[in-house]
C-alpha cells in the first residue's frame, strides 16, 4: 500500500509540475508581469517571455522560488499578500461547505435508502433533483437578496450581506451595514456569520448530488448478503444500517465527494464573487480583469495568474490523492498490496 501511495504521490507531483509548466508557458508568452500598482491601461506591455524557451527558464526560476515562499513574484507583497489571504478565505468557505455537505448528505441519503420507495424517498428525490439543478451563483444571489431584505426592512443584522470580517468591501452595489474589526472570540463568531450563508449557497447543490450517490451505494449494501446475515444474527435495524451497510457505502461516498472538489472549487469562486469574500474567485477575476484586449499583448501579472492556477491544480490533485488514501482506509478491499 505504501509503495502504491508513493507512486500515486509521485504521479500527482508530476502532473502538478506539467500543468503548471504548460499553463506558465501560455501565460508568460501572452501576458506581462506588471505589478498592480504600476497598471497603466493606456500602455501596451510586452509579454513576460518572448518564446517557450524563455518561458521555460522563467518557469524554472519560479519553481525554485516556491519553497522559499516568494513564488517568483517581482511585485512582492502587492500580490502575494492577497494571494495568501484569498487562499485562507476560500479554505474556510470550502471547509464549512464540506462539513454541511457531508452531514446533510449522510442524513438525507441514509433516510432515502432506508425508506426506499416511500413518500419520504420521493420527497427527498424531488429535493435532491431541485437542489442539484440550481446553480450555486443563482442560489447565492437569492440568499443574498433575502439577507439584504431582512437587514434593510426588518433590522435583522445577524448575517452580513457581503464581505469578510475585518475588511470593509468597496463595491458599487453592496455595502456591509456594520463593518468592524473584531478580534479573538468575536473574530471567530464573525467568521462564522460571514461564511455561513455563502457556505449554505455553495453546499445545497452538492447535498442534492451526494445524498443521491449515498442512497444508491447504501441500497446496494442493504441488499448485500452480509446485511441479511447481520439481520439473521438478531442485530437491530439501526445497528445493521449504521454499523454494517453505511460503513460499507462510505468508501464510494467519500471517493465521489473528494473527486468532486474541483466542481466545489469552481462553484466556490462564483459564491465568493457574489458575497465579496475576498477569496480565490474574487482574486482570480480581479487579476484577469487586468486584460486590455485588442491586438497587442495585454497587461496582466503573469506570476500572479500562475500562482492562482498552480494553487487550483494543487487543490484538485491534493483532493484526489486524499481520496485514494481515504478509500484505502475505509475499504480494506481497495488496498493495493
Amino acid at each position, binding site marked *: 500500500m505504501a509503495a502504491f501511495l508513493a507512486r500515486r504521490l509521485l*504521479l500527482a507531483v508530476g*502532473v*502538478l509540475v*506539467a*500543468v503548471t509548466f*504548460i*499553463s506558465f508557458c*501560455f501565460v508568460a508568452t*501572452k501576458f506581462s508581469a506588471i505589478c498592480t500598482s504600476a497598471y497603466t491601461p493606456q500602455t501596451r506591455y510586452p509579454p513576460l517571455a518572448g518564446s517557450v524557451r524563455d518561458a521555460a527558464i522563467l518557469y524554472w526560476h519560479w519553481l525554485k522560488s516556491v519553497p522559499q515562499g516568494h513564488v517568483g513574484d517581482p511585485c512582492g507583497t502587492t500580490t502575494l499578500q492577497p494571494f495568501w489571504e484569498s487562499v485562507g478565505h476560500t479554505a474556510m468557505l470550502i471547509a464549512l461547505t464540506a462539513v454541511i455537505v457531508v452531514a446533510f448528505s449522510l442524513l438525507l441519503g441514509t433516510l432515502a*435508502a432506508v425508506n*426506499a*420507495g416511500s413518500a419520504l424517498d420521493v420527497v427527498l428525490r424531488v429535493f435532491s*433533483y*431541485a437542489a*442539484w*439543478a*440550481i*446553480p*450555486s*451563483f*443563482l442560489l447565492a*444571489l437569492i440568499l443574498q*437578496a433575502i439577507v439584504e*431584505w431582512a437587514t434593510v426592512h426588518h433590522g435583522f443584522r445577524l448575517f452580513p450581506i457581503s464581505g469578510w470580517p475585518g475588511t470593509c468591501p468597496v463595491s458599487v*452595489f453592496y455595502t456591509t451595514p456594520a463593518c468592524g474589526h473584531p478580534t479573538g472570540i468575536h473574530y471567530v463568531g464573525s467568521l462564522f456569520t460571514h461564511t455561513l450563508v455563502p457556505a449554505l449557497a455553495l453546499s445545497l447543490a452538492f447535498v442534492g448530488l451526494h445524498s*443521491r450517490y449515498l442512497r*444508491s451505494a447504501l*441500497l*446496494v449494501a*442493504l*441488499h448485500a448478503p452480509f446485511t441479511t446475515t447481520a439481520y439473521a444474527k438478531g442485530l437491530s435495524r439501526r445497528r445493521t444500517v449504521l454499523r454494517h451497510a453505511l460503513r460499507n457505502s462510505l468508501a464510494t461516498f467519500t471517493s465521489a465527494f473528494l473527486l468532486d472538489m*474541483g*466542481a466545489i*472549487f*469552481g*462553484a466556490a*469562486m*462564483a459564491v465568493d*464573487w*457574489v458575497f465579496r469574500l475576498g477569496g480565490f474567485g474574487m482574486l*482570480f*477575476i480581479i487579476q*484577469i480583469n487586468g*486584460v486590455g*484586449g*485588442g491586438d497587442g499583448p*495585454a497587461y*496582466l501579472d503573469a506570476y500572479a*495568474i500562475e500562482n492562482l*492556477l498552480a494553487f*487550483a*491544480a494543487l487543490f*484538485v*490533485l491534493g483532493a484526489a490523492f486524499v481520496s485514494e488514501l481515504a478509500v484505502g482506509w475505509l475499504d480494506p478491499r481497495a488496498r493495493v498490496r
Partner: protein
Amino acid sequence: MTSLDIALESSFATRPRGLGFVALRRFARRPLAVAALVTVLSLFVAGALAGVLAPGGWSEINLAVVHRAPTFAGGHVFGTDWVGRDMVVRTLYGIRTTEIVALSAAVIATIAGVLAGGIAGYYGGWLDAFVMRVSDLLTALPVVVIVLAALVYFGEAYPHLLVLIFSGCMWAGVARVIRTDVARLRVQEFVEAGRALGATDLRILRRHILPNVGGTIAVAATALVGQIVLIDATVEFFGYGLPESVAPSLGNLVADVVKFKFGLTTDPAVAGLGWWTWVFPGLVLVLILVCLNVVGDSLDEALNPSSQLG
C-alpha cells in the same frame, strides 16, 4: 419431439431482446423520467426554432413597451426589458445559444472521449498510459478555471470557441469512464471468441465492445450536457462568456441581475431591470438542469438496475 412439446415450446418462445431495449422499456416505465425527457426536448426544440417562432430576432427594440411587467395583454408573457425587448423572445434565443454550445460541445467531447477511452482501454500499454496522463492534465484544474483562463487567453468569446474550449477540456472525463468499461470487456469470453474467429480489432471494437458500452456513453453524454450548461452559465455570470451583444444566452441573461441588483430595489440608479428579466431565464435554466439530471439519473438506473433496489 411430440406435438405437445412443440406447442409448449412455441408458447414459451419469446423474441430475443437486447439490453438496450430492456433498458429503454425500464426507462419508459418511469413517468418522471419521460416527463423530464419530453420537457427538455420541447425546450430544446423551441430554442432551435427560435428563428421561426420569433422572426424579428432577439434585439428587436420596441420603445412603446419599455420595462413592462409580465402580462398576457399585448403578448409579453415574460415582460419586456429596459428597451422594450420581449423577454419570451430573448429567453428563446437564450435557450438556442445555450443548447448550441452545450449540445455541440457534449457531442464532440463524447466522440473524442469514446475514441480515446476505447483505444486506451482496448490496447492498454503505452497508449493507455498516454491517454490517461493527458486526461490527468486536463482534470487537474477545475473546468471553470480552465474556461475562464482560455477565454482570457483568446481575448473574446464566440459560440464555436466556447464549443472548442468545453469539448477540449471535458472529453477526459468521458474517456476515463469508457476506458474502465472497455478494459473490463476486452478480457470477456465473447471478445476472446471474436478474436479466435479472426475478427479484426476494429470489428471487435465496433460490433462487440461499442454496443456493450452504449449505456455508459448515453449516461456520460447526458451528464456532460448538464455540466456544460451549468459551467457555461457560471462563466457568463462572471462576464466572460458570450457578451449579450453577440447573442443572449441563459447565463448572460441571468448575469444581468448582478449589474442591476435583482430589479427589486426602488433606487432609481440600479432599478433598470425588473425581476422578470432574470427570473424567467433563471427558471428555464434550472428547469433544463433538473430535466437533464432526472433523465441522466433515470437512464443510469434503467441501465444499472442494481442501483434502484428497493
